[in-house]
């Protein structure tokens, strides 16, 4: 049983963080970063995030897992068809990876190889169904597995998305398909998260709020214009713009978010984008 699933089952507030595989084979910086994850239960390993080609998330997750860092393997439907997804998942299980975050994936258009053919053979609901099947010992066509993987499958949600009911019907489908926890897109406003958590409550699945370290007003505007699903509210952009030390202000905002998240949901997912050394200050 993964620490993540155990802590969520115990009702303990969890902290997750994330790490991006390198573009190349040099894993040393990733291992250095992993050492900075103080007070973090598990680390998401992103899968060609933002549709930018990197070393495989499975490879880095396996290496981190072997060196004692608990990981959450992110897997998107963008780059692999159903056969590749199933075999990668079995491979992940063979490395002792249990926690999964199963995603549709950003469109290839956003990345560094926009001419690539996006796959999307499955969507995230179907991917969750498939994982549930693997855990029950069968592949997607019902053939029995010799050796059954143990997973703790999670899914993503964007509490800010409108129309809310439309977004939420998919969240409900993900729960039906076996999602055991949710990590959300970056959230900045308590009332947005409260609305989402109260809709989630009858479904009984824990929610981990996405907390993004926004280091400047400029970065906030970039996120708003370029990153699907991320919306930094105007008042926070203004705060960052006016702050004499925008990084310190960004840490303060993330710290405030973590503080209310402790009352509202079951954990936080810290997206520090290379500034993992700030994690202790955000959690303080």
């Amino acid at each position, binding site marked *: 049983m993964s620490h993540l699933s155990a802590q969520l089952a115990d009702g303990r507030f969890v902290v997750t963080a994330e790490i991006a595989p390198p573009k190349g084979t040099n894993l040393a910086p990733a291992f250095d970063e992993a050492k900075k994850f103080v007070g973090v239960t598990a680390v998401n390993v992103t899968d060609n995030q933002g549709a930018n080609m990197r070393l495989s998330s499975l490879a880095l997750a396996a290496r981190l897992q072997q060196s004692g860092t608990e990981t959450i393997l992110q897997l998107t439907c963008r780059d692999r068809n159903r056969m590749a997804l199933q075999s990668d998942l079995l491979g992940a299980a063979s490395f002792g990876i249990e926690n999964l975050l199963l995603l549709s994936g950003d469109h290839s258009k956003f990345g560094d190889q926009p001419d690539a053919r996006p796959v999307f053979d499955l969507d995230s609901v179907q991917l969750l169904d498939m994982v549930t099947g693997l855990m029950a010992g069968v592949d997607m066509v019902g053939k029995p597995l010799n050796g059954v993987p143990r997973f703790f499958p999670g899914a993503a949600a964007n509490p800010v998305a409108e129309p809310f009911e439309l*977004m939420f019907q998919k969240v409900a489908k993900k729960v039906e398909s076996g999602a055991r926890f949710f990590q959300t897109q970056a959230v900045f406003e308590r009332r947005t998260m409260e609305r989402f958590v109260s809709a989630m409550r009858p479904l009984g699945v824990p929610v981990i709020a996405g907390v993004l370290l926004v280091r400047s007003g400029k970065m906030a505007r970039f996120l708003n214009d370029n990153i699907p699903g991320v919306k930094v509210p105007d008042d926070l952009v203004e705060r960052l713009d006016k702050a004499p030390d925008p990084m310190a202000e960004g840490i303060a905002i993330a710290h405030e978010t973590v503080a209310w998240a402790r009352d509202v949901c079951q954990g936080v997912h810290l997206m520090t984008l290379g500034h993992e050394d700030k994690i202790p200050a955000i959690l303080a």
Partner: protein
Amino acid sequence: MIISELKPLEDLQKTLSDFSSLFLVGCAACATACKAGGEEEVFKLQEWLLEQGKDVTGSVIIDEACHIMRAARDLRHHKNAVHEADALVVLACGSGVQAISSNVEKQVVGGLNSMFLGNVRRFGHYEEMCSLCGDCILNETAGICPVTTCAKGLLNGPCGGMEDGRCEIDPEIDCAWRLIYERLQTQQRQGVFARRVPPKNWSRRRKPGRYRLKDGES
């Protein structure tokens, strides 16, 4: 109809550099309707080729260039002109080009890029609404195809990139799932939202597609 557009002229120039005389073929169906390979465009191409110092031995607009037998018949009617040419230039979709290339020994140069099966919004404005997947879900999605009009072809609702009901890849475009959701609401039915849609059967679209009417239907 099949929406196509003229290849960049510099590409055509390169492809045609080895030939001095050409026979031109247009199509009276889709390529005419989207103004890529009708009489007018074949004439313009001829003018351009003459400016490039090429000879044009003749031309024909085939009723439906994708009809292999009809293409053969029309080419026979222009046997001499085809014979005199070094190569044929076809202003039709990829199907049309291949109907011609399967009927002549000579090199056939396709002059168009074929893009998609398009609906006409208004003259000159075409939109892809169907991607011919062979496994139609429209009856559950209020007549709006998510396979085609969702950029990711998702079957169980919108992705996390939907912002204010718009698509992540182009904020000018409505999220297909928002449109499906709203139209189903108007129709007061759950439709596709009533179930988890299983993975799509892509074997229905195995290439190359083949279909024959059964005995008694033809």
